[in-house]
């Protein structure tokens, strides 16, 4: 039926709206039946919720949202009498309404030829025409006032609904609802984190950090002590090709040249040593001889005669 298409009950008994419009009613009778059943459904939902609330208040039990009472069947919880009676009464009402509408529609269908026959004579048609005109006038007048009526109604709703919502929300633990019903994963997935992060000014954050103070708190001595420098050095040495490095160094510094120079220097120094010694010996001998010969005059050594 049309009602099931627009509104459906899901597995937990909650009501979800489907985004599909109902097809236009086949005829007035169907519309009437549909409207009646909608009203009945709503009434039963309300009744069920109220009954459950009352029962809870009486018993003081904690109920989970999953345990909302199914309309008219009361399967999920023990059966107090009042809801059963109410449910039975409602069902009877629905059935009788359904039967009633069917009878009425059948009767109406059967009456139709008679009605059309009754409408055929002219005076009847005139009468009916006048009545129709009057109806149209009334309808027009209603339609003109409809806008105003609707605006009055909507402003009333606008005034009342926030208060109702407030009162409702006061009764609810919204946080608990959100936590239990909102799929945060999907929410987070929908958020563009890259854009959010790109708006963060990391520079400002970092410039606010006092890195000096942080580093000052680091005990560098302890860190260095923990470093096994010997092992590191050993590893480094193992890695190095010391032979080729040494060869390279030797090639660069021209060791033979150094050896030559040092040898030459050594030779020079030896020779100089000998010369100095012999000079000293010369002087000694000449002084000795002078003393021996009792020469007072000093030898002329300014030119360094040997």
């Amino acid at each position: 039926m049309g009602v099931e298409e627009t509104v459906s009950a899901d597995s937990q008994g909650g009501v979800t709206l489907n985004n599909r419009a109902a097809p236009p009613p086949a005829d007035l009778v169907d519309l009437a039946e549909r409207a009646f059943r909608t009203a009945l459904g709503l009434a039963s939902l309300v009744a069920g919720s109220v009954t459950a609330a009352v029962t809870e208040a009486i018993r003081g039990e904690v109920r989970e949202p999953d345990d909302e009472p199914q309309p008219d069947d009361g399967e999920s919880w023990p059966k107090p009498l009042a809801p059963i009676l109410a449910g039975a009464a409602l069902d009877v009402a629905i059935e009788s309404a359904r039967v009633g509408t069917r009878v009425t529609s059948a009767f109406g269908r059967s009456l139709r030829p008679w009605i059309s026959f009754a409408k055929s004579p002219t005076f009847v048609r005139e009468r009916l025409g006048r009545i129709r005109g009057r109806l149209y006038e009334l309808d027009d007048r209603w339609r003109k006032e409809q806008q105003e009526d609707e605006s009055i109604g909507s402003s009333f709703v606008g005034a009342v609904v926030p208060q109702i919502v407030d009162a409702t929300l006061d009764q609810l633990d919204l946080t608990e609802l959100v936590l239990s019903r909102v799929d945060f994963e999907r929410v987070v997935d929908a958020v563009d984190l890259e854009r959010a992060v790109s708006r963060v000014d990391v520079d400002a954050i970092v410039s606010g950090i006092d890195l000096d103070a942080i580093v000052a708190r680091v005990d560098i001595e302890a860190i260095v002590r923990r470093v096994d420098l010997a092992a590191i050095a050993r590893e480094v040495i193992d890695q190095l090709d010391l032979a080729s490095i040494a060869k390279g160094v030797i090639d660069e510094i021209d060791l033979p040249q150094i050896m030559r120079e040092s040898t030459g220097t050594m030779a020079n120094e030896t020779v100089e040593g000998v010369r100095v010694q012999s000079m000293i010996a010369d002087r000694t001998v000449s002084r000795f001889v002078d003393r021996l010969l009792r020469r007072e005059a000093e030898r002329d050594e300014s030119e360094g005669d040997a």
Partner: protein
Amino acid sequence: MSRFVADAIDLLLVLVAVGVAYLGVAATDFLLAPRRFAWPSPGALAIGILGWGLLTVYLTVAWSGTGRSVGKQVMGLRVERHDGGGLRLGHAFLRALLCAAFPIGLFWSLFSRDSASIQDLVVRTKVVYDWQPRVPTRPGDNGRTAAESDSA
């Protein structure tokens, strides 16, 4: 003292040269007639003349060139004319001759006031020190002379 060491060195050099000459002769002998080889025995006179000749020639060349023989080079000495100039060839030859013939004369330098030997007095030469102590200023230097080094 340094003179004597220098002369001793020169003498030693000449003796070695004589020895080498002797060996050379012996080797040539051997090469020419190996089966009849016998060490040559030229006699003392021959050797003496050879040595003396070598000495003279050697000293002449040395003194006329740089004024230094090898021995004098080692001891940092030099032979100069009395006025300070170098020896000419003839001059050097004369001096060499006298030194080779009359070595005793060299000892006069001990007593001489000018440290001159007889030969020096005869040919009017003198022997002087001719070296600067080399002062090594930095490691790796060859050692520069005192005049060249820039630090005391």
